[in-house]
């Protein structure tokens, strides 16, 4: 049974039937799935959710499908890690990493949204999936559309990281590289979507697709023992994920699955593409589009579709937003790797670096629960940090050589301490 009433314009409130439609015909505002929350309240409880399999569909009443899901049945339920080492490094007592860098099957949170978009596309009877992507979405649409026996057309900026290209074409996808930035790809795709009858997951399927992001926050609240965190730090490209994290928390509160704790939402951007945080800091009504220049390519959207609403959420929730330089992003990736053993992509570096900055600024308090959304895997953006990590120590397969190296490393680490010297003399 479905609890989705239809689509509703976020701006003017005009309602529409459940169709592959993303823009209000009257005011061009975004359409969003509208639910019968009273009905959901009667059907969904902690016990019902806990009785189900560990994937995004355990919250299916709050996802915009009418039939049983058909795509991405094992997607979701990524780890929430109490990050003690990172907390020590940052000087905070309770910090968690929601690690969607290990989301199945393509190692980013995009598997959540694509599963919902393609399940819905199958309901509508589409035979072709498409998307405009900065990489992670391309990977996910390529993999999941293949598994769902859908044809696909995938559009990306020409200069993406190699791993994101291979991670798309390996599935036999039709990949089209565009000479331009993501915003050019997006504009072209809006025009293509108007001409070709495909399920463009982030264009005409966007109201359904975007709802999939809520599952990340649903999981966090369940994993925290049915409570919402005091602070939630989220990366922003289009700003969609941030608005859906907020919506998810509001929905769980409304249905009575968690108590209201006044979660504050913080948005993270790269300085080289920070239209949303710039507008937020300057208290602008609207953001100015920018031409992105950052290593965080997965966040490089200069004309963010949900930028306006993301600002609204940060303001309303009492949170804030920050942006960080490419060097801070690299340091953020290394900090998370060296403290928690988690290798995140550049977007995650942005989120960690912004978290650090907000703690240093005193914006994030030291003694309240903080959840940091890590949305992608570092193996996909290795180029970004290849020159900033150490190279292997090369030696021959010879015990003396290794012992010499061992001593040298010990000397370096301990500044020529007695222990290192004596080890050397014992073995010489």
């Amino acid at each position, binding site marked *: 049974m479905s609890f989705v009433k239809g689509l509703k314009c976020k*701006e003017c409130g005009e309602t529409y039937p459940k169709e592959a439609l*993303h*823009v*209000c*015909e*009257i*005011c*061009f*505002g*975004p359409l969003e799935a509208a639910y019968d929350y009273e009905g959901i309240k009667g059907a969904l409880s902690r016990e019902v959710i806990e009785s189900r399999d560990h994937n995004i569909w355990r919250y299916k009443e709050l996802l915009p499908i009418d039939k049983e899901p058909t795509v991405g049945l094992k997607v979701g339920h990524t780890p929430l890690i109490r990050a003690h080492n990172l907390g020590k490094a940052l000087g905070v007592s309770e910090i968690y990493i929601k690690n969607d860098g290990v989301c199945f099957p393509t190692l980013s949170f*995009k598997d959540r*949204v694509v599963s919902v978009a393609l399940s819905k596309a199958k309901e509508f009877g589409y035979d072709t999936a498409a998307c*405009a*992507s*900065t990489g*992670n*979405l391309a990977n996910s649409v390529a993999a999941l559309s293949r598994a769902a026996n859908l044809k696909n057309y995938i559009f990306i900026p020409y200069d993406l990281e190699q791993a994101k290209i291979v991670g798309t074409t390996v599935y036999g996808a039709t990949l089209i590289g565009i000479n331009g930035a*993501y*915003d*050019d790809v*997006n*504009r072209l*795709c*809006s*025009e293509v*979507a*108007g*001409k070709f009858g495909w399920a463009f997951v*982030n*264009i005409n399927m*966007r109201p359904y*697709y*975007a709802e999939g992001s809520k599952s990340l926050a649903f999981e966090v609240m369940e994993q925290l023992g049915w409570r919402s965190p005091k602070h939630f730090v989220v990366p922003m*490209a*289009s700003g*969609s*994920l941030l608005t859906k994290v907020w919506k998810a928390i509001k929905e769980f509160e409304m249905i009575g699955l968690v108590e209201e704790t006044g979660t504050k939402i913080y948005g993270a951007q790269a300085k080289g593409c920070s239209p949303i945080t710039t507008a937020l800091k300057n208290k602008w009504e*609207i953001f*100015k*589009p920018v*031409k992105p220049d950052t290593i965080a390519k*997965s*966040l490089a*959207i200069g*004309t963010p*579709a*949900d930028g*306006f609403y993301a600002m609204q959420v940060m303001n309303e929730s009492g949170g804030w937003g920050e942006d960080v330089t490419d060097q801070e992003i690299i340091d953020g990736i290394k900090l998370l790797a060296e403290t928690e053993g988690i290798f995140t992509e550049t*977007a995650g570096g942005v989120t960690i670096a912004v978290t650090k900055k907000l703690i240093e600024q005193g914006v994030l308090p030291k003694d309240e629960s903080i959840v940091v959304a890590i*949305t992608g895997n570092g193996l996909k953006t290795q180029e970004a940090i290849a020159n900033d990590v150490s190279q292997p120590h090369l030696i021959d397969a010879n015990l003396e050589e290794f012992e010499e190296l061992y001593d040298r490393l010990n000397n370096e680490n301990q500044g020529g301490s007695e222990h290192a010297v004596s080890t050397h003399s014992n073995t010489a």
Partner: protein
Amino acid sequence: MPSVRIPTPLRKLTADQDEVNVSASNISGLIEELENQYPGIKARLCDESGEVRRFINLYVNNEDIRFLDGKETALNDADIVSIIPAIAGGF
């Protein structure tokens, strides 16, 4: 005359044409001329104060007019103007 690509939500006003030609020397003039030819379209493109709606992006030859001269952006005969809903895309 510059040509204008019409997005799906506006095609009911243009008798289903996805591209129309409009004589105008800049974006402001183009919106007025569109209104003359297709009454009702201006109210869809602009809010009460006459500004282009928050969720509409306008492009001249694939460049966002906010990077050009906004509504004063000049138009030449061979120019292509695209009206694109702002709500699209994700990471």
